[in-house]
Each structure stands twice: as C-alpha cells, then as structure tokens.
C-alpha cells in the first residue's frame, strides 16, 4: 500500500489531472441520476404538496390546506389509519411466519442451504402483478379455493368472505413480501456466535432459554430490518387493494393514484405522498432506535 502511495505522489501533473478527471467522470452518472431522479423528484413532490390546485403543473399559490384536509377529513384519516393497520398486520404476519424458516436456514439446512435460499427468493423475481392476480383467482367466489372446498366436501356452499376483504389484502401482501422478511433474519441468525450457544448448553441452559436469551436478542436487528423492508412497500401498495381488497380495503396508495387520475388534484396527491414518506421516515427512525437498543445489549 505504501509503495503505491509513494509512486502516486511522484506522478507528474498530467497524470494527476487524469486521475481527477477519472474521479469526476466515474461519479458523474450516479450523481446525475440521484440528484435528478431522487432528490429533485422528491423535492418537487414536497413543493407541490404545499400548493393550491389551479390545474397548472406546479399549482397556484402556497397553502397548508392539503395537509389540513388529509389529516382532519375523516375520510382520509380513516384510509391513512387503515393503511397503517394493514401494513402493520402484514409486517407482523410476515416476520413471525418467516422467522422459523430463517432459523431453519441458519441452523438446520446443512448442505441444502444454498438451494433453499434460492427457492425461497425465486418467487420474489416473478411478476408481482401476476402473483396478486393468482390470489384473486384463488379467493374468488367461484374461484379455486371455494371450488376445492366444495369438491372435497369440506363446505357445502361457496364462502363469500374470501375476496374483497382486508384479510385478503393481508394474506396476499404477506405472500408477496415473504422473501423480504426471511433474508435479513437469516443473515442476523448467521451472525449468532456458535460458541455462545455451546457455552450456554455446557452451563445447563434449556433450549428454550437459549433461544429466548441468546438467539432471539442477537437476531433482533435482522427482525427490525425485515419489518422495515416489508412495511415500506406494503403501506403504499396499490395493486393488491385494487385487485383483492374491495371497497372496504382502500389504502393510501389508491388514494394517491386517484388524485393523479380521476380526481385530478395533483397537489393534494403530493401532500398525501409526503405524509406517507413521513410515516416511513418515522418507522425507519423507530427501527434504528430499536436496533441501537438491542445492539447495545449484545
């Protein structure tokens, strides 16, 4: 390392300029893409959220009414709370059901680990729209699940309550984001020092207390990361409530879409988006605090 530093300092000025140009050239694509597509685009959404709707692209005048309406009108407050509740249920269900799979991967999968990891992540790479569509077909009144129950004689008439319910949304979303939850938990479980477990065993700890007092606390950062990556896409989801949710499952994503479609009130849609981003920011902050707390324990 020291050799290359010495030779670098001995380089002539032309090479130094070339080195700087290389640095600039290599940073340019990323800097351009992120400043335009991420920073500027989100900035414009924030700006538009504080504008009145006069039909023009950037709104008429500054106002706080969009946020006032979104937070006080019971219609929007209900939808926002429902989105949080559904995303919360999905996150909880996904993380709790994924944990044993991650545990199996980390401690019991043996030489099949690579294959099993691939198997649980593969569905993630298939079309999300098609997976939701599949659930619509499964849960429909004349659909796969009902007809299977009828054919096998488990029920005598179709069950109406599958499709168009918030429960359908929760199941479909939990299915869609399963892989998201397994992987971070698995990574955290991989990091549990095996020596710690052996030491506890030697001292006579029972398996349940080893799990509760060693494995679970150490894997908590993974659980937090899993909760976060499931919560974010579900809280703003549009496709699933639209296809399997029915009228009682409208979520904030559908509301935002409507403002940019039928309702044609872009500033209000932008304000709703800002609220969603703030909610996500708050969840990220909570996850980080929790992460630090669990982190300091170990």
């Amino acid at each position, binding site marked *: *390392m020291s050799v290359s530093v010495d*030779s670098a300092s001995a380089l002539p000025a032309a090479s130094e300029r070339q080195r700087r140009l*290389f*640095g600039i050239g*290599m940073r340019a*694509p*990323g*800097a351009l*893409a992120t400043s335009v*597509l*991420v920073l*500027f*685009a989100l900035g*414009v*959404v924030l700006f*538009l959220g504080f504008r009145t709707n006069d039909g023009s*692209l*950037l709104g008429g005048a500054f106002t706080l009414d969009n946020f006032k309406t979104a937070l006080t009108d019971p219609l929007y407050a209900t939808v926002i709370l429902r989105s949080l509740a559904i995303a919360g249920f999905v996150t909880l269900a996904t993380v709790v059901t994924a944990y*044993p799979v991650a545990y*199996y991967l980390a401690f*019991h999968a*043996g030489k099949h*680990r690579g294959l099993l*990891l*691939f*198997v*649980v992540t*593969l569905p*993630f*790479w*298939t079309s999300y*729209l*098609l997976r939701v*569509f*599949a659930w619509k*077909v*499964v849960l429909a009144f*004349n*659909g*796969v699940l009902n007809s299977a129950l009828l*054919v096998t004689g488990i029920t005598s008439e179709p069950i109406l309550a599958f499709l168009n319910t918030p429960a359908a949304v929760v199941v479909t979303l939990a299915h869609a984001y399963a892989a*998201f939850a397994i*992987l971070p938990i698995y*990574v955290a479980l991989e990091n549990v020092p095996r020596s710690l*477990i052996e030491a506890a*065993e030697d001292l006579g700890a029972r398996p349940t207390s*080893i799990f509760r007092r060693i494995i679970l606390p150490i894997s908590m950062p993974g659980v937090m990361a899993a909760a*976060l*990556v499931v919560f*974010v896409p579900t809280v*703003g*989801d*549009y*496709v699933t409530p639209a296809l399997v949710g029915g009228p009682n499952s409208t979520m904030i994503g559908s509301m*935002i*879409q409507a403002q*940019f479609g039928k309702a044609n009130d*872009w500033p209000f849609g*932008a304000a709703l988006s800002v609220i969603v981003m703030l909610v*996500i920011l708050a969840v990220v902050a909570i996850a980080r605090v929790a992460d630090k707390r669990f982190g300091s324990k170990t």
Partner: protein
Amino acid sequence: MNPTSPTKAPWLTIYVVAYVLFLYLPIAIIPLFSFNNSIQAAFPLSGFTLEWYRSLFDNENLHRAFQTSLIVGVSAAFLATSIGVTVGYMEVAGGDRASRLISALCRLPILIPGVIVGIALLILVNLAGLGPSRMAIVLGHTLVALPTAVVIMRGRFSSLPRSFSEVAMDLGAHEWTTFRRIVLPLAAPAIASSFMLSFLTSFDEFIVAFFLSGTEPTLPLFVWGQLRFPKALPSVMALGTFILLASIVIATGAEIIRRRGASNDELPVTTPRPLPIS
C-alpha cells in the same frame, strides 16, 4: 436439541415445507388453469386445451406491448447497470464521502413505495416537457432497478483483491486503463447478472409504468387492462405462464452467473442487508 448441530427438527422441517408450498402453490395456479378448458378458473378441471395459448399468437396489441417491454427493459437495464458499475466502483475504490453518499442515494428507492416513485417521476417528466412516454418509463425503471444494480456491483468490487489494480497502477497504468483492462473484465459476471436482474425488474414492474406510460403500454400494463374482462382471464393465464417462465429462467441464469463470479457469497442478491439507513 442442539441448534448448532444438524440434528433433525421434524416439526421445523414440516413447517418449512408447508411454507415453501404456501409460496409456490398460488403461483402454480396460473400455469395449471392456463391449460384448463373453461372460462372459469375453478375445480374440478374440465379438460385440457391449448386454445388460450393459440389466442396469444394473433393478438397485435399483445405483440406491441411485448416489444415495448423489451425495449424499455433493455434500456433501463443498460442505464441501471452502467450507473451501478460506476457507483459501486467509486464506493469501494474511492471510499470518499461523496461516493458513499451517492451510493446511499442510489439504494434509497427501496424505501420509497412504488406509487410515490410513479407520481414523483410523472411530475418530473411533465416538468421536463417529456410527458408520459416510453422514455419516461425507462427513467422510472432505471430508478427502480438501481438499488439492485448498485448492491450487486459493489458486492463484486469489494470481493476483488485490491492487489490486482495496485500492481497495474504501480506498473504505470492510469486509473482509467486499470479500470477498463483489469477491474471490468474481473467484474464481467456480476455485470451480466446485474443487467439480467435489472431487465427482469423492469420487465415485471407495474405501478411505476402505470403512471408513466403514454400510448404504448408495457406487458404488465397490457395484463392489467385485460383483467377487466372476465372472458380474457384464461388468455391472461396463458400469457402469465410465459411471463413466469421467462422470469424464472432469467433469475436462475443471473444467480448462476453471479455465483460463478463470486463463489464465496452464497446469499441471493435480494438480501436487503445494505439498508440505506446505516
């Protein structure tokens, strides 16, 4: 029950098998009923047919949507991978604050719901005078694929032995020459893998394209349009079978290529370890 030894855990094994079934069975519904001789997707299966597949061949709109998806996917994959290569390399080789910030911003879209990415870019392309169009979808999909591309590329660059490029530079090669002649060839499998997965992300993406498409829908948008017509559902399943098959082939190929390139990392790239919050 020693969790460190590969002892049998029968209940856990059963649970994992059930979980994998839960993951795959709903998806398997689509190919199963694409061969079923009935408009209604319900049991019992009424008979075998290839009618739904035949109906795909003379559908002009479908062919155009497929073409749009290919063009958009290849363009977005090219852009996302190019950016991913430069950002990933600068984060690993440069390691300076600016490079790390750019990399974190590239991974930020993971934390933005698709609807918001869609509306933000819709406002952006309207401001730019571009409007909803193929080009707009390309920009949107580049953004959506960027986190994956950056994560794959920086993973590969950080596993490259530094000595290679140091030797080259000690021998008098410039940064650019070293990058082009030493680093890029060594990273070729990861580049291929990043390109394939970025393409796949775009090919399957719906919600961002939903906001940004003009007169030319992509394949998922075509599927969405068909969902309104109950009679079209069997054809959607036939088309869906093709799309699922393409996704599985591309994802498997990308994973095989990537593992050959970096045999020390068995984790799939979807692993959301590098959260942009850290």
